[in-house]
């Protein structure tokens, strides 16, 4: 009886793993033409589970022709399962003050396992010179 239960448990676990797995195959040019302005980042990572689901690979900044700061972050899901991630950009002016804006809303992305995604933020004013990106696991 105990043996049957063990087998059933193993089968259920296997099914859960198979169903949960959803990874992506990615292809891109070996030599990229774009010239990126990569930003050296400072990290405070308090959620280790989220750190694996949304690994920060690259932070790139650029300015629009009108002078608005644009930020793009490349996230990598290090698990084999699809992960939902909430994110938000905060913007700071030359005095280091937080800019209150409707553009700083929480947004959500759904990232397949072993896949990367780009999330983008745009400064609400031309006076925004710094930013902070916050990631949060849904339901937390």
């Amino acid at each position, binding site marked *: 009886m105990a043996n049957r239960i063990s087998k059933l448990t193993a089968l259920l676990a296997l099914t859960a793993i198979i169903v949960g797995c959803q990874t992506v195959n990615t292809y891109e040019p070996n030599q990229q033409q774009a010239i990126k302005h990569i930003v050296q980042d400072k990290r405070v990572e308090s959620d280790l589970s989220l750190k694996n689901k949304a690994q920060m690979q690259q932070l790139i900044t650029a300015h*629009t022709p*009108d002078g608005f700061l644009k930020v793009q972050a490349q996230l990598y899901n290090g698990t084999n399962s699809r992960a939902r991630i909430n994110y938000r950009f905060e913007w700071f002016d030359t005095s280091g003050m937080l800019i209150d804006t*409707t553009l700083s*809303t*929480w947004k959500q992305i759904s990232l397949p396992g072993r896949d990367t995604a780009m999330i983008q933020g745009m400064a609400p004013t031309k006076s925004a010179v710094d930013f902070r990106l916050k990631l949060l696991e849904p339901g937390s």
Partner: protein
Amino acid sequence: MKMTFNKTCIALGLCGLMLTGCESTRAKRIDPAGTQTITTIKRLDIQDAADAAAAMSQSLLESGRLGKHVNAAGETVLRPSVIAIDRYVNNTSQQIDRDEVLKKIRVALNKAGVAQTIVTINDQGDLGGESNIASKFARENTPADRSVQTPELLVVDYSLTFKIIENRAQAGQIRQTTFTFQMSLVDVKTGLAVWEDEKQITKQGKDSSVGW
């Protein structure tokens, strides 16, 4: 000893559950811009409206269409563009106030210093907009034949059209609703849509939930 430990664990667990349960049902204020808001399947939630407005504002700012103009001498002049709010079409099954999304976009553009909204023109292009006093002033200073216009009317650069579409699907007990937000910025002098964008928000599930 083991029995006592188990009983203590169960008691503590039940106590925790009760405390958590009480906390979740008691009325409290939450951050409307946070992630603890209610997510419904069928309705346009406040976070959906905020998300759509942010995406549209970002796209408009990125387009570089606003805030710069070419004068009669062919020189580029930097000044906030004047926008008139055009037609709003709500093709959904629910009543959605135009300003639930549009006002947020107006605020974002205004704070960015690239656009200002004219409030003396209604969505038919006639005098009489959101501001009664400013509309009255404009009416009093504009002859019926429109031979002379108030300075405000002369500088309308763009009109903004806005449409929301809803699409529903169901598979068994799982329901799905997609809201599509479409927006166009039209140069009133040429009639050309100089910027257009679309944002879709899709929600799927069985029941509404707290948080997202």
